[in-house]
């Protein structure tokens, strides 16, 4: 490898690494300082471990958080990985269309997902499903109660399933089939090949995404807030929310909880490095290949029905409930005596003063933010997978900061950090872009490195031996091979930015308002019929942008 090539490459990776370390480290430092201070940010004079000692009173909440996180991660992984395998690797009918449909629940914010399920399964005739089942089967009691621990796990699991799906499908697509072929030649059936060969090969993607989902489920707020509040069911994050925006704020304890949760997931990252470190996952080598689509025969219709069942439960029901709500003159779950109107959509599109501006700002930030995030994440992922060093291990742990610290706490850290910075961006739209990149870098890095794990390093080495520059290697070898993974990662970050609320709601102003804040505003100060209408418009916009992006990418104009 020529010195010049290695030199420019190392400068790029090191600069990116330091930049990202600063972006995620600076707010963390502010939070650590805050956690050692008094209840208010102005109390910085009295440093001490007060807030950490207070954490021991909240251990019961940690148990609730763990139950919800473990339960929803298992549900999300089971659904997400199975769906990805069926749609990427079997000849199930209409796989292409279904692939777009199964991620639709992810278009909705967690809050709206919870609202959809509250409309369906509120424990009386007020829940649409309960009301239907009670009248069909003459039941005395409502069969479902979504205002429960199980309800929270169910809705969270469904919410995170598309997340796991997007992670695994990239890895399943960039997999050379020769190992699976060997298994089959040696007499392994479809099922045994899948369990013994395919699944272990996409283990990095599975572990990477399950760790992310677990940590995100620990840090989630919207679902337990909507479904737990009336029954007094608290998790760590709903308590943190009270500590920050409740009647008696204590930023110190909130910051300490965030820092403690980060320490907790740093442990998870360390475990993951240990598990993955001992094996090799290279399946994409120099030989040409196309991932084999397995002919499952008549069984494909069984698989198809299972996917459709998922689509009905996870997509049609909650979206249908929201659509029904958005078409009512005022909120009602009485589907036997419904009055339909387009008044809510008319109001949101033509009368609500914020919709157009929020739509414009959101698209600008989400397209720009996802692209910048992916550029940085691509470089970091390459460094994590190809160049193991002290710096890369530090990056691997640090990029968990924005994921592991619950959004509402990390946002306070971002606020404390950037309000003091000499950059004149506070109060402008650029502060939002900066925060989105900071918050979603981990998603990008994890999603890209999941695919990069599988590409044989010898491909890059060959190119460099014959005189290619690193830039040529990236453009000629890595980008084409990583394309499915990159597309999935961009989608993931794009959707996540559109849905981001915690940081947006602290840092926006009326000129930089985004859709997630506009929806939340309606949630706070308006009827559910308007909330549902704007949330569905938001989902439609996500769908259209992704559709257009796929067309462009397929036409080869990008990548």
């Amino acid at each position, binding site marked *: 490898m020529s010195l010049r090539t290695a030199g420019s490459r190392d400068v790029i990776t090191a600069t990116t690494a330091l930049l990202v370390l600063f972006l995620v480290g600076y707010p963390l430092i502010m939070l650590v300082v805050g956690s050692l201070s008094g209840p208010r940010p102005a109390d910085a004079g009295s440093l001490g471990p007060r807030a950490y000692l207070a954490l021991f009173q909240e251990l019961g909440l940690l148990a609730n958080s763990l139950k919800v996180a473990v339960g929803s991660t298992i549900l999300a992984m089971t659904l997400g990985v199975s769906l990805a395998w069926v749609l990427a690797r079997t000849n199930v009918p209409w796989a292409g269309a279904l692939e777009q449909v199964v991620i639709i629940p992810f278009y909705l914010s967690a809050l709206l997902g919870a609202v959809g399920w509250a409309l369906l399964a509120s424990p009386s005739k007020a829940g649409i499903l309960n009301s239907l089942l009670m009248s069909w089967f003459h039941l005395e009691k409502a069969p479902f109660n979504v205002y429960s621990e199980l309800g929270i796990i169910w809705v969270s699991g469904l919410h995170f399933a598309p997340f796991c799906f997007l992670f695994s499908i990239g890895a399943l697509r960039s997999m050379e089939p020769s190992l699976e072929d060997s298994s089959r030649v040696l007499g392994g059936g479809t099922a045994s090949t899948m369990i013994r060969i395919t699944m272990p090969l996409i283990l990095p993607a599975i572990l990477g995404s399950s760790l992310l989902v677990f940590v995100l489920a620990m840090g989630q707020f919207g679902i337990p807030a909507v479904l737990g509040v*009336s029954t007094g069911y608290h998790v760590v994050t709903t308590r943190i929310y009270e500590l920050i925006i409740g009647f*008696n704020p204590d930023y110190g304890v909130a910051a300490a909880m965030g820092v403690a949760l980060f320490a907790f997931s740093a442990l998870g990252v360390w475990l993951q490095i240990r598990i993955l470190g001992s094996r090799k996952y290279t399946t994409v080598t120099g030989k040409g290949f196309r991932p084999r689509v397995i002919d499952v025969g008549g069984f494909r219709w069984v698989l198809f029905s299972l996917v459709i069942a998922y689509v009905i439960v996870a997509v049609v029901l909650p979206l249908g409930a929201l659509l029904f709500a958005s078409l009512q*003159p005022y*909120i009602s779950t009485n589907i036997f005596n419904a009055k339909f109107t387009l008044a809510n959509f008319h109001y949101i599109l033509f009368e609500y003063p914020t919709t157009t501006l929020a739509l414009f700002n959101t698209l600008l930030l989400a397209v720009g933010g996802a692209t910048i995030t992916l550029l940085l994440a691509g470089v970091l992922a390459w460094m994590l997978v190809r160049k193991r060093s002290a710096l890369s291990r530090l990056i691997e742990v640090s990029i968990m900061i924005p994921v592991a610290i619950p959004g509402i706490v990390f946002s306070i850290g971002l606020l404390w950090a950037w309000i003091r910075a000499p950059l004149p961006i506070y109060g402008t739209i650029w502060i939002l872009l900066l925060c989105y990149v900071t918050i979603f870098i981990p998603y990008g890095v994890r999603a890209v490195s999941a695919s990069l794990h599988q590409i044989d390093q010898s491909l890059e080495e060959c190119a460099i031996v014959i005189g290619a520059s690193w830039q040529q290697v990236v453009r000629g070898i890595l980008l084409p091979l990583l394309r499915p993974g990159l597309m999935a990662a961009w989608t993931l970050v794009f959707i996540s930015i559109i849905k981001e609320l915690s940081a947006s709601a602290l840092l926006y*102003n*009326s000129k930089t308002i985004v859709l997630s804040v506009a929806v939340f505003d309606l*949630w706070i100060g308006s009827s559910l019929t308007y909330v549902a209408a704007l949330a569905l418009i938001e989902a439609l916009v996500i769908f259209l942008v992704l559709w257009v992006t796929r067309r462009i990418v397929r036409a080869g104009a990008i990548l």
Partner: protein
Amino acid sequence: MHPFSIKRRQTIALGAALAVSTSTNLSHAQSSFDRAKLIEAARKEGKLVFYSTIPEEQNNEILKRFQKKYPFIDTSSFRATSGRLAARLDAEIAAGKVYGDVLQMGAFGRFIGYAKAGNFERFDTPEMAAYEPSMKDQGLWTVFRVSPILIAYSSERVADKDAPTSWADLTNPKFKGRVNLLDATSGGQQAHWYQVRQYLGPNYWKQVSSNGAVALSGANRAMDAVLTGEYDVAGHTYGYVVNSYLKKNAPIKQVIPKDGVPIMISPISILKGGPNPNAARLFVDWILSREGQIEIVDVMNDYSPRADAPSPKGLPPYKDLKILTPNSWESLANSEQEFGQEWTSLFVKKQ
């Protein structure tokens, strides 16, 4: 009989005094107040940043009407729930960089906290003379809207003859498990708790709790839950919330409780160190003027503390209401913690 209405009469008398300009306080304010000069100074700044907890739509409308009067001021706002707004403002104050000019906040206790901590800029306008003493801390903050707290019920599931007519009715066994309230993060619910407790006795809320009432988050969610049938009675709502649902012909009816109406007050103030202090003064001067108050009553459907402003649509004149005025707004503001603990133990039903 009702301290507020008596004081209101005094206010009217004060208004009469204004005509002959006998009050020393007033003549002082008048001599030092030069609106034309203020308008020029505000024009030079050309901008105003409003920190507020008013819902987006109404907030935008208020700024629009201010801009109609003073089109050379480009307004923008940061609006959020009281807690989020406080989190941002606390951080700005701690960093010594305040980006907002004018503050309006639903949580009265927190608002008063900023006044005590010296975060507000003093400003006197002759308009403040029209506000009686319990509605202001002269020059520091002034209440610009008064929201009556009401009851609403589903007219589909509750017949008019069975409907609640008073706060006492919420303890009636026929409403067992059918009433919702707001959770402890609501500043309005705190005012409601304090005032009703003062007039109906310390056991009142315990009785409402044993009658199975449940706290939800936000007046709109509580009303939605009455429409879907999860509950039949909203035990804490506002005229403007009911009106927005009535506009859509929702089967809701409002009750002005015959045992008295608690009120929530919303003060406004100028933030110390904000970027546009003169535009801030001009905005506060406008919002407290009769002209500004007519706009506020029209947009918010709340009462004005000014005697010379009209009543909101669909509600009787203020003097006809039996207002449950708190013995002290100061101790109401200081009751946050006690309220939070009692409320959570009473109305968050454990699984």
